[in-house]
């Protein structure tokens, strides 16, 4: 009993639970463990997975970003409109990255430099940016002129679609940044104790601005891929994305109080969200029920996390 408890509440508890769930689902749900379904599953989590990379940094430094969904839609929109206008996909992509980066930068400067609460700031930018996307397109979807744009999402390497490769690459890059760079360690230190980190020579303001700017850039990448997949710029795309991303991070053991995060955890969190949705689709469960299930998964994850930290606390 106690060894089971240890296994579930230990460092790798989430991975163990994930592996168990995966095995059970593979055995019981028909058509789950097929190459086609696996690729579909991964493709469905690309947006959440990519944005979760930087959301992890945001949460780990005790910040919060609600504007990611709007930024994804807005930068996708910009990519489509700019490439239609200039006839160059490259320029369209660059424009999207710049726009995403600017949104993030504005968030960061307002939050870190002017010390406005992150929740309020990003709640405001979430609406402003969504508004900009709607204004730019007059509220309608904007079709892609150049079919080459579709290739971003459709192309494959070794049988795996490009967006999945990009997501995997970002997982590796940000995993490395978190664990093996000064940037990552400083992020965790800020989340652990912002004032002590500042006095220890960490440039807290600059760090926080960078984290938000990165978040904006990464949202732009996700936005471009999403636009390519849905073959148009949609001003209403990715609504509610911020909640799914934050759920995935929390599910992956990232502490909302800051100071604790792991890339593997976030990946598992993202996959759990994806699998739950996928399985419910395969079992033909009505979409309305899926909200309930997603909410329940999040609650259970947080409860588990709570149990885990009390277990850790007792050890100290």
């Amino acid at each position, binding site marked *: 009993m106690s060894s089971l408890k240890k296994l579930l509440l230990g460092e790798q508890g989430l991975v163990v639970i994930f592996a168990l769930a995966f095995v059970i689902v593979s055995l019981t749900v028909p058509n789950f463990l097929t190459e086609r379904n696996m690729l579909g599953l991964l493709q469905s989590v690309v947006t959440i997975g990519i944005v979760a990379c930087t959301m992890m940094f945001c949460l780990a430094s005790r910040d919060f970003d609600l504007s990611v969904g709007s930024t994804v839609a807005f930068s996708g929109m910009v990519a489509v409109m700019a490439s239609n206008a200039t006839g160059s996909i490259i320029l369209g992509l660059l424009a999207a990255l710049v726009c995403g980066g600017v949104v993030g930068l504005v968030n960061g400067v307002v939050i870190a430099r002017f010390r406005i609460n992150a929740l309020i700031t990003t709640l405001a930018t979430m609406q402003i940016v969504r508004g900009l996307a709607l204004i730019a397109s007059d509220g309608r979807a904007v079709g892609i002129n150049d079919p080459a744009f579709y290739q971003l999402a459709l192309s494959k390497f070794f049988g795996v679609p490009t967006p999945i490769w990009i997501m995997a690459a970002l997982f590796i890059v940000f995993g490395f940044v978190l664990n093996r760079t*000064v940037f990552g*360690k400083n992020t965790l*230190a800020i989340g*652990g104790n912002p004032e*002590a980190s500042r*006095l220890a020579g960490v*440039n807290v303001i600059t760090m926080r601005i960078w984290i938000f700017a990165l978040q904006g850039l990464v949202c732009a990448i996700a936005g471009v891929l999403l636009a390519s997949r849905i073959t148009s710029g949609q001003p209403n795309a990715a609504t509610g994305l911020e909640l799914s991303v934050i759920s995935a991070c929390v599910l992956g053991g990232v502490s909302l109080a800051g100071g604790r995060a792991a890339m593997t955890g976030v990946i598992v969190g993202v996959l759990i969200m994806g699998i739950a949705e996928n399985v419910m689709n395969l079992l033909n469960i009505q979409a309305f029920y899926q909200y309930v299930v997603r909410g329940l998964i999040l609650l259970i994850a947080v409860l588990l996390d709570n149990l885990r930290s009390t277990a850790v606390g007792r050890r*100290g």
Partner: protein
Amino acid sequence: MTDFLQFNGISKGYPGVQALSDISFSVRKGAVHGLMGENGAGKSTLIRLLSGDQSADAGEIRIDGQPQHYCSVRDAFQAGVIVIHQELQLVPELSVAENLWLGRFPGKGGVINSRTLIETVRQKLAEIGIDVDPSTKVGQLSIGERQMVEIAKAVMLDARVIALDEPTSSLSSRESEILFALIAKLKAKGTIILYVSHRLDEIFRLCDSLTVLRDGKLAAHHPDIGQVTRDQIISEMVGREISNIWGYKPREAGAVRLKVRDLSGSKLPVPISFDVRAGEILGFFGLIGAGRSEMTRLVYGADSRRSGTVEVDGVKVAPDSPPQSIRSGMVLCPEDRKHDGIVQGRSIEENIAISSRRHFSPFGILSPRKEADLADTFIARLKVRTPSRKQDIINLSGGNQQKVILGRWLSEQGVKLLIIDEPTRGIDVGAKSEIYEILYDLAAGGMAIVVISSELPEVMGITDRIMVMCQGRVAADIPRTEFDERRILAAALPDTSPVAAAQS
């Protein structure tokens, strides 16, 4: 005279540590009982068991002959045992009266009878001689007053045993006096006070009996404190004789390293100027609120300057930027370790390397091997007591946390000036000597050191020169040859030096 509170064979272990083994002693009714020991000796664990926060692996606590089997803080309350921790447990947004009634508000059907609320508290406070208005918000009280309120809460709950954990560590001497008077009153009522402190003079003044713990074991139990001497207690605590805990060694002072001119800020309106030389240990002494910590934070750039310049080795230091200060060779060990010093939730290794890792992390990419070596080096050099460098810093005792923060700065390159605010607050005698030793070594190596302390014996014991601060000004600048306790105290007290204040 019966033994009212008894500890019988108490043992408690945590993974990797036996925090307490077979502790037995007893306390008479109406006694103030001292509990001493170095950090990590097991005092906190014992207090935690008494408070019901944790339960013992073996042994029992008896109150009035009755074995207690409580397993929560609430149960302990019911048994009449209340522990008052260093971090006070009051809600700042609520009034004094509301805090005292919290959890059992008087009234019917959820509607609070505010008159009963205020009046009962007013009565209780008057009874025990605490001069605080029950309708004041706790957030507006001083730390000393808050502590009084905590004690009043214990009295309201009819506590039979009150344990005070380092109660005077953040009190001024005047506030401490009020606390001591209150303790005397409680004692007269027959309440047992368990008094945990590092301060020998307080122990001798207040306590009737004393228990000394060392390494989780009972080192000594003195039913009558009149029969023991200071030196005896110190040697019982450390297990060896310490003749002179200061161990001061004279040094040659070199060229001026730190030059501060006309420095002022919002919390330090009167400009301050001073120099510190290489190899010199300069002490800043003053009462709480005299502006010492505000001054150091300005020098270091932790707060914004209003005016003035700071130079290290003749080079001006950019204002308002701790990273720039560190690059200029100036480092700070802050007063409030928990809030400003340690990064909770992260390992010792990361806490040491947080600043210096930039020297061996090309393009911001870490070298885990070098970081581990660095941590091991300083853990060994500063004798940090820990099972591993991966240990979360929050699990260390105060002295060891202080050593880790020292390690953080000693691992930096080109440190010329070390500012250390309250170097040994909450740190036991043995670790104190070790920290002083480190400071002397650094000064001998040519570093300039600024020590801020509110303990006069400490400043007099270890510094070469003392600047006394009073109400935000420098009231006196005294070299070691002229150290005189009365002169320093007189300069630090606002009322006694009206002439000096008028002159400056």
